């Protein structure tokens, strides 16, 4: 942010980190107009990217190679996809899978036959292959067989898919992984950020790859319908295409990322909370904005009513959200014009509604003022630097922990259940897993993700050290005496300067829900229709309602969020 913005922001109250970074609240977040998919779509539409299939070699079963050439504002890219046969019993959304219906990559520049041939040797192998530094993303996906076959058959018969069927499962394919940031030989994030300005925001290349899989799924379905029944097949209507998203399965792998990148998470939170603060304190409450919010809530209510998930807990949360939003809409109708600002609404919702509804209202308020919010999408990057301040006195370090990590010191790790879980990496593709301490093997290889306990340990050692030496002694000397504290001291000192960033919860506690971590990150991505499959992984839908390729260049209202099923 620039200085002028900072000066203004300094006068706007921000929600406290204790409230924002509470794990349960993070697990109640929703997509917003600052979510990465929303920002990406605005960019594509604003800059009028040209995206065209330049190779489309699929056989009668839909297997083969497809390349879309992408002309963005600054560079040309190629999205390359390989579609292969996969038997139903081989189809597995887990990280440990080794075969997929489609594998794909996004790479810099236009590519030739030889490059495609080279990619064909490695891209389908995913983690087991090697790619090069011109590639930005390596990803894969599996068919939602039931939906895909249904859509192909109805198109082949000359009809359109029923929107009610697509409302239940709003995608034809699910992505099961989208790797970037230098994995398997790909371009480093630093290279992407500096040399590919079209994808210089966090995860934008990964999001774009998922968007392109969505496009491919539509194109493939149309192609197969046409091959199956050339005389009767029809193309998919545009409104149906827009309602088709891309499924996603996300598991524990996403959770360690949030813990290991607190500065980045803090930056995302800061941008979102700054937006909320601006809207709440600077946005005018009047007939126009009240009407706009009422319309948005009506749309969200319908979206929720169309969201069917098997998970009983999520179903209950959706029902509560529906009922509470209905209530909030009534309250706004009766009291909206008496609100001096949106803080009145926020306080009312905080007092009367669940966290799920509170965070939904916060997200929806951002929709009212694009002019206050959208520029903050430029603030999502941070150069992460974790540094020791050796000149800090031990008394100051102790004070920093007591002030900034009060939440961690308040956790009683002697309580039964406080150390229930440990996080570790499995030998199977280094998949992050959660084990039961003292019951499952691997505790000695625990990953240092339970920050609260590490802070407590550091604090206790610090207190002993101060008693033995001096509170005026310096951190430089403490770290010679206690060299194994280097990592956590570096983190504490660095993060003490950030307002948000540390997730305030005990990640080893028996009541900890990994889903909360996943949902936090997925909400920043911009997904919808959370469909938990256990406490450890969740299905969801990406880009449902988003513009399709033929929409690029046309007027764009940026209102595709929380889509509803509309028959033509």
């Amino acid at each position: 942010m620039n200085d002028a913005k900072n000066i203004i922001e300094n006068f706007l109250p921000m929600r406290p980190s204790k409230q924002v970074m509470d794990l349960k609240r993070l697990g109640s977040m929703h997509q917003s107009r600052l979510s990465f998919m929303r920002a990406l779509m605005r960019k594509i539409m604003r800059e009028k990217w040209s995206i065209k299939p330049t190779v489309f070699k699929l056989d009668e079963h839909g297997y083969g190679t497809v390349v879309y050439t992408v002309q963005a504002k600054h560079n040309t890219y190629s999205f390359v996809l390989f579609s292969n046969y996969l038997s139903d019993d081989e189809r597995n959304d887990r990280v440990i899978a080794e075969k997929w219906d489609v594998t794909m990559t996004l790479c810099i520049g236009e590519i030739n036959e030889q490059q495609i041939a080279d990619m064909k040797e490695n891209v389908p192998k995913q983690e087991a292959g090697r790619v090069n530094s011109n590639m930005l993303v390596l990803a894969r996906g599996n068919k939602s067989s039931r939906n895909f076959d249904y859509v192909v058959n109805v198109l082949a018969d000359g009809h359109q898919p029923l929107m009610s069927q697509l409302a239940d499962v709003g995608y034809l394919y699910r992505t099961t992984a989208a790797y970037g940031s230098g994995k398997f030989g790909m371009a480093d994030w630093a290279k992407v950020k500096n040399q590919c300005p079209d994808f210089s925001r966090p995860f934008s290349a990964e999001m774009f790859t998922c968007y392109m899989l969505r496009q491919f799924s539509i194109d493939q379905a149309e192609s197969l319908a046409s091959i199956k029944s050339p005389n009767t097949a029809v193309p998919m209507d545009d409104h149906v295409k827009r309602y088709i998203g891309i499924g996603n399965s996300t598991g524990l792998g996403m959770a360690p990322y949030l813990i290991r990148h607190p500065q980045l998470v803090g930056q995302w939170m800061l941008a979102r909370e700054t937006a909320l603060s601006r809207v709440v304190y600077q946005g005018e409450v009047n007939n126009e904005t009240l009407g706009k919010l009422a319309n948005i809530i009506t749309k969200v209510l319908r979206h929720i009513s169309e969201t069917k998930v098997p998970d009983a807990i999520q179903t209950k949360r959706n029902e509560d959200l529906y009922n509470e939003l209905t209530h909030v809409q009534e309250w706004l109708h009766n009291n909206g014009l008496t609100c001096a600002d949106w803080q009145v609404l926020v306080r009312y919702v905080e007092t009367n509604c669940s966290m799920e509804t509170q965070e939904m209202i916060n997200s929806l308020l951002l929709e009212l003022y694009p002019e206050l919010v959208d520029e903050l999408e430029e603030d999502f990057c941070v150069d992460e630097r974790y540094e020791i301040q050796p000149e800090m006195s031990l008394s100051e370090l102790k004070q920093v922990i007591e002030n900034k990590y009060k939440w961690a010191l308040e956790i009683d790790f002697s309580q039964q259940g406080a150390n229930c879980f440990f996080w570790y990496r499995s030998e199977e593709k280094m998949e992050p897993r959660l084990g039961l301490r003292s019951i499952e093997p691997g505790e000695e290889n625990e990953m240092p993700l339970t920050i609260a306990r590490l802070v407590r340990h550091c604090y206790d050692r610090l207190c002993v050290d101060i008693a033995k030496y001096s509170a005026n002694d310096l951190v430089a000397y403490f770290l010679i005496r206690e060299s194994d504290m280097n990592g956590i001291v570096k983190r504490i000192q660095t993060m003490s300067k950030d307002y948000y960033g540390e997730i305030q919860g005990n990640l080893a506690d028996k009541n900890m829900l990994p889903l909360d971590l996943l949902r936090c990150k997925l909400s920043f991505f911009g997904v919808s229709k959370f469909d938990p499959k256990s406490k450890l992984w969740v299905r969801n839908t990406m880009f449902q309602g988003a513009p399709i390729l033929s929409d690029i260049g046309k007027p764009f209202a940026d209102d595709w969020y929380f889509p509803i099923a509309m028959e033509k």
Partner: protein
Amino acid sequence: MRASRNELIALFKQAFEGVGFDFGGYENAADMIIWTQMHGMNSFQSIRNRMSVFEQRKQLLAEQFVPDTLLLDAKDHSVIDAKGNSSIVAAGMAFDIAYVKALKSGVAYTTVLNCHDRKLAIKKLVDCANRGFVCLAYWRDSETLHVITSDTGFCCPEYLQYKLEDLDGSDCLNEKNQQTLFVVCASHASGLQEYIANNLPELKGNQTFVMSPTVMKSSYMAALTNGIEIDSSFWEELVVLGKEVLVESTEQSRMGAGA
């Protein structure tokens, strides 16, 4: 084979975690090695030669860095005994101690005895320079005086070598100096120049090698753009070391990933 920076950092982190480095320590190690390699100073070869030592480190951990490691703690000078360890372990604390002393005295230096892989100290020198100080690191091997200085006005330091036999009146060839790393921090360039005048008359000798900040920067950019070359057998050695931190997969453990 070529690999990305992120990928190699993850690989080295896991390898060093596998040989018993602590949280913080293995991150440090990976950062120092990759930074040095990307900036054209070939850290991979020297680290590869020492991996067997690191593998033995688990047994040695209990002996490492007990409080008497800090042998001398004077107003502007400290002496640390690295006990045969790599600068991966010792350089950070050497610069930190010099820095906190220089904050008060303007110039301070740390002598690190029995220290290996001294070239890797360059990353810690850069970190210290980023605090707004001018920094110097130097060491001697059997034939060469190596000097790294941040006093360049650029984002990267400069790396110089001098042939020891060309130097006059130096005691630098004695056994004591053979595994010693000297690091210096100064709040102003004049303080560093004064230190050099008093302690490093050898720098008037003939340079045999210069790696300029520009060369370092361009080496980094090339590595970032094209990937970093690493011998595939070294890669495999690191993978094997890293496997120490992985946990055997069982049906029960698969449940812990959401199966």
